[in-house]
């Protein structure tokens, strides 16, 4: 048996696992938002995967891993032409989809489906590949500086979250989220068991995300990477549970679920460079950061993010990247490596932030201009996106009890909704598809 086959097997399995993370995202985001928008969020997730695979195949992969144009962008391998290792493409396509789908949760319950898909395509085609080229291609300028981002705290998670922050900033909060005095209301998710399932699936898939990034099971660091991943996620959970108990007097369910993801994002950059004990600490810190970040974004910055995506992937993504400068066995401040690595890590985050915030802002503005805004009408938002954009609801529990069957729980919001649907449908097509 040749080594190539074994490596291929490993990368393929990791590909499957990262693919499966999208089931996790879909369940998490569905569970954490309201039932009247459930079909919409599911469609956003499914369509992200589908369009991402296609767009990354046609263009994104070439921009990311093609022969470099000055360390800035790749420029060969469109539609995989001339690409040998298409297994690596498959693995990377799932990463691209992950980056894009992070946005879907943050903009949930109010962004037009068409506008969202347009943004997701832009992410996969250029915004994400640019970052990826800088950091993961052989000749990226950040890679050359020694920037460490093993499996993508910055490349994947922070990039997705920064783009999400821009979209949320432009969108504004959901109706009813903020009061006139600026205080925030709780809008509880409608199905926490689904959300928890999403977290377990994400954690499961993350083993492939981090473990698969070795590209070979012969990598002597593999087992350590897996152990660090598990310890950091566990640290995130425990820290969030304890910290919410301290701060809010209850173990907050949805934050503790986010805590697992905080720990996972927190270890993604450093999984191959830190010791298990470092990973545990990084996860514990991530859990606390998460709780504060959610409060900060929600109440102070007024970035209404129903699922906590910006806090989890963005703030904890920064933490994970910077923490490498502290905990890396080679070059980490706490291991006597001085501040050099720390500086490079910070520089990398700053550069990526500049690019992503700027480019996403332009892209979203263009999408909005072309599509008549990126937000659904107030009426549709109140009624729920499911009925207006998809024509049916996610749940129909009542049908059996009452024989009413067609009673729409979300259909009561105004008589002219239906008459406007056709024109909306047209808008949407104009906007993005």
């Amino acid at each position: 048996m040749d080594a190539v086959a074994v490596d291929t097997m490993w990368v393929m399995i990791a590909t499957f696992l990262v693919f499966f993370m999208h089931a996790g995202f879909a369940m998490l985001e569905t569970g954490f938002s309201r039932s009247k928008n459930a079909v919409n969020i599911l469609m956003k997730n499914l369509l992200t995967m589908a369009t991402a695979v296609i767009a990354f195949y046609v263009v994104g992969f070439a921009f990311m891993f093609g022969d470099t144009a000055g360390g800035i962008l790749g420029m060969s391998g469109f539609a995989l032409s001339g690409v040998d290792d298409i297994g690596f493409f498959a693995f990377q396509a799932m990463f691209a989809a992950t980056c894009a789908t992070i946005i879907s949760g943050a903009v949930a319950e109010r962004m037009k489906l068409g506008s969202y898909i347009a943004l997701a395509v832009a992410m996969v085609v250029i915004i994400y590949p640019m970052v990826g080229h800088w950091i993961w291609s052989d000749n990226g300028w950040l890679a050359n500086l020694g920037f460490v981002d093993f499996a993508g705290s910055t490349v994947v998670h922070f990039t997705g979250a920064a783009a999400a922050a821009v979209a949320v900033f432009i969108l504004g909060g959901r109706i009813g989220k903020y009061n006139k005095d600026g205080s925030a209301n709780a809008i509880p998710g409608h199905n926490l068991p689904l959300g928890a399932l999403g977290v377990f699936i994400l954690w499961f898939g993350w083993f492939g995300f981090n473990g698969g990034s070795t590209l070979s099971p012969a990598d002597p660091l593999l087992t350590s990477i897996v152990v660090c991943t598990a310890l950091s996620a566990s640290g995130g959970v425990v820290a969030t549970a304890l910290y919410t108990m301290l701060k809010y007097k209850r173990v907050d369910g949805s934050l503790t679920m986010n805590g697992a993801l905080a720990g996972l994002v927190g270890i993604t950059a450093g999984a191959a460079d830190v010791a298990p004990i470092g990973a545990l600490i990084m996860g514990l810190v991530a859990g606390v950061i998460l709780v504060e970040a959610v409060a900060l974004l929600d109440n102070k910055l007024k970035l209404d993010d129903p699922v906590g995506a910006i806090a989890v992937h963005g703030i904890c993504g920064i933490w994970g990247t910077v923490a490498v400068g502290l905990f890396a066995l080679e070059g980490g401040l706490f291991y006597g490596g001085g501040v050099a690595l720390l500086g490079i890590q910070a520089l990398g985050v700053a550069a990526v932030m500049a690019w992503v915030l700027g480019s996403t802002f332009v892209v979203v503005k263009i999408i909005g201009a072309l599509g008549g805004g990126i937000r659904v009408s107030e009426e549709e938002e109140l009624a729920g996106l499911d009925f207006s954009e998809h024509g049916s609801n996610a749940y129909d529990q009542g049908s059996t009890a009452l024989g009413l069957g067609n009673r729409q729980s979300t259909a009561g919001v105004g008589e002219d909704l239906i008459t406007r649907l056709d024109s909306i449908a047209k808008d949407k097509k104009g906007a993005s598809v």
Partner: protein
Amino acid sequence: MKKVEAIIRPEHFQTLRKRLESFGVKGLTVSEVAGCGKQKGQEGVFRGNKFEVTLLPKVKIEMVIGEEQLDEIIELITECSYTGKVGDGKIFVFDVQEAIRIRTKERGVEAIS
């Protein structure tokens, strides 16, 4: 005939139902409602945001009965649903013009016995 409408705490319902049955009440209709009154709501926390639970779940029982049973039934409901804390609920009484049993087309008191 009178219609007795009682709005009570959910957890008292099953006991009350059994008591009414033994007492001889022939039929009743219940539904889930939410209410507010003297009883104040509670505070929940979701992702760190506090929220007020302004409406509390109650059960509404509707019974159409003969006038002669009225006092005893009020008595019985009051007894079963009493805790002495705010939120125990209310009983309202209405006049009924007519009652019809669909199955037999009986009318009036016959329909409800």
